[in-house]
């Protein structure tokens, strides 16, 4: 129980203080609602626009899920490929970087041309935004493997496949999971941006990104914030997922959990 308290207490304190400061700022500087709505305005707007937010959130969550898991899969595959062969690494890494840095603003129209308006394109955009942190971290992890442990595998005539599966991948886990955490946090940004450029603008197909644009252009500022927090909530779900994975995979042996035993 004590552990639960010490886990919940600090963020609660910080949260309450932040909200207090928020109100204080609003009342001290007399900030109008369209500049910074108060928390209760946001809650009220959120409950008013409930149905729009929920259907938008569901749509966006779907895009996030697909984008996240494809970037997970794709990122890991690419990293493994890059770590397997130094030729592939030298040959492809620069172009992966290029792809990564190609501004999405430029790529988005092309993606839509190829994948059509809707979920597929949104997913691809989310994928593009998420996969690089995974690739960069996993590749670094796969290449950092303790030389001494590699020697063990070499001595026992390990196949390249086993060396990857049984040594490099477990060793890279902490790196991989960090990349995954970054990707998880980027996921809703990707999906929301995707919504605004490749999403549908009507009915139950409209994602949260579309909702955000509409609220923003209609100056429904408190509702806009409510939409933003809804997006954050989706992000939290993903990050929590990764955190649970992190704990399950590492707590038994990794030094980041060494203190707790």
């Amino acid at each position, binding site marked *: 129980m004590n552990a639960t308290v010490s886990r919940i207490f600090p963020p609660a304190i910080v949260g309450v203080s932040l909200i207090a400061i928020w109100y204080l700022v609003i009342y001290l500087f007399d900030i109008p609602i369209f500049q910074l709505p108060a928390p209760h305005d946001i809650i009220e707007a959120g409950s008013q626009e409930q149905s729009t937010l929920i259907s938008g959130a569901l749509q966006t969550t779907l895009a996030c899920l697909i984008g996240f898991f494809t970037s997970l899969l794709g990122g890991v595959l690419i990293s493994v490929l890059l770590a397997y062969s130094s030729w592939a690494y030298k040959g492809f890494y620069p172009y992966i970087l290029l792809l990564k840095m190609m501004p999405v603003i430029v790529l988005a129209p092309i993606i839509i041309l190829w994948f059509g308006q809707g979920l597929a394109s949104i997913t691809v955009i989310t994928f593009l935004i998420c996969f690089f942190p995974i690739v960069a971290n996993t590749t670094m992890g796969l290449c950092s493997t303790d030389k*001494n*442990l590699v*020697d*063990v*595998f*070499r*001595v*026992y*005539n*390990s*196949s390249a496949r*086993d060396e990857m599966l*049984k*040594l490099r991948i*477990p*060793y890279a*886990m902490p790196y991989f999971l960090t990349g995954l955490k970054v990707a998880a946090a980027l996921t809703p940004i990707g999906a929301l941006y995707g919504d605004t450029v490749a999403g549908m603008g009507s009915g139950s197909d409209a994602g949260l990104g579309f909702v955000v644009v509409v609220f923003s252009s209609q100056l429904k500022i408190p509702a806009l914030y409510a939409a933003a927090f809804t997006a954050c909530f989706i992000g939290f779900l993903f990050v929590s997922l990764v955190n649970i994975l992190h704990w399950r995979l590492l707590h*038994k*042996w*990794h030094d980041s959990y*060494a203190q707790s035993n």
Partner: protein
Amino acid sequence: MPNLTAATALSDSEEIRTADPAVSIQGLYKQYGNGPTVLNNINLEIAEDDFIGLIGPSGCGKSTLLKLLGGLESKTKGDIQFLTQQTSPRPKMGFVFQDANLMPWLTVIANVMLPLELNGASKQEAERKAIQLIEMVGLGHVKNHYPRQLSGGMRMRASIARALTIEPQLLLLDEPFGALDEMTRDDLNEELLKLKQLQAWVGVFVTHSVTEAVFLSSRVLVMSANPGEIYREIPIDLPFPRTSETRNLPEFQQKVVEVSQTLHELRNLA
């Protein structure tokens, strides 16, 4: 606790082995990067039933020689040939590193099973063999622990068990018993010799203990440092099998003195 039956039972599953790799090292040189010469013109023939003890001052190149034999470092010059009957270019090897080098994410038993699994053994068979060796090195009660929950000596013992599970043709041991108390060490020495007869490997080991070197070896090689060279070869013609009684033989004591004196002689040269 050391366990005789474990060792005796170990190779029952194996076909009768005629695998007799022998090793020939000719004019071997090693230099790391463009540092000084670490190994200088090493020439050595290892026969089919040899168990060679390497002894010499810290930093003289013992580990380096073992790593070259294990194919873990590239040689600067010279030649290492495995005169094995097999088609594969190198014999099946076991290697006990100077540090335990266990996988931190695997339990003791999973670590010990690893070489077998890498060589395609079934999980079941790997587990059976691993448990026998874990019992032999006295770690049965911690077989499901992770490396960080073990003491230093226990980690080294797990590492020894790992090297022996695959029933190697060539066994390389780098100070395997250095972190163990004398009792455990003596027991494991005897177990190792029994295993040698059963598994019939060719072995090379590094040690700082003169008595251990004499007890285990068919030949002791005394190395000198800067650059690492084989200073003298001392054949240990004590009869096999050797047991705890062997240690009390006057010939044994004599050999111990001979090796010690060689080491002193070497030191006074420097």
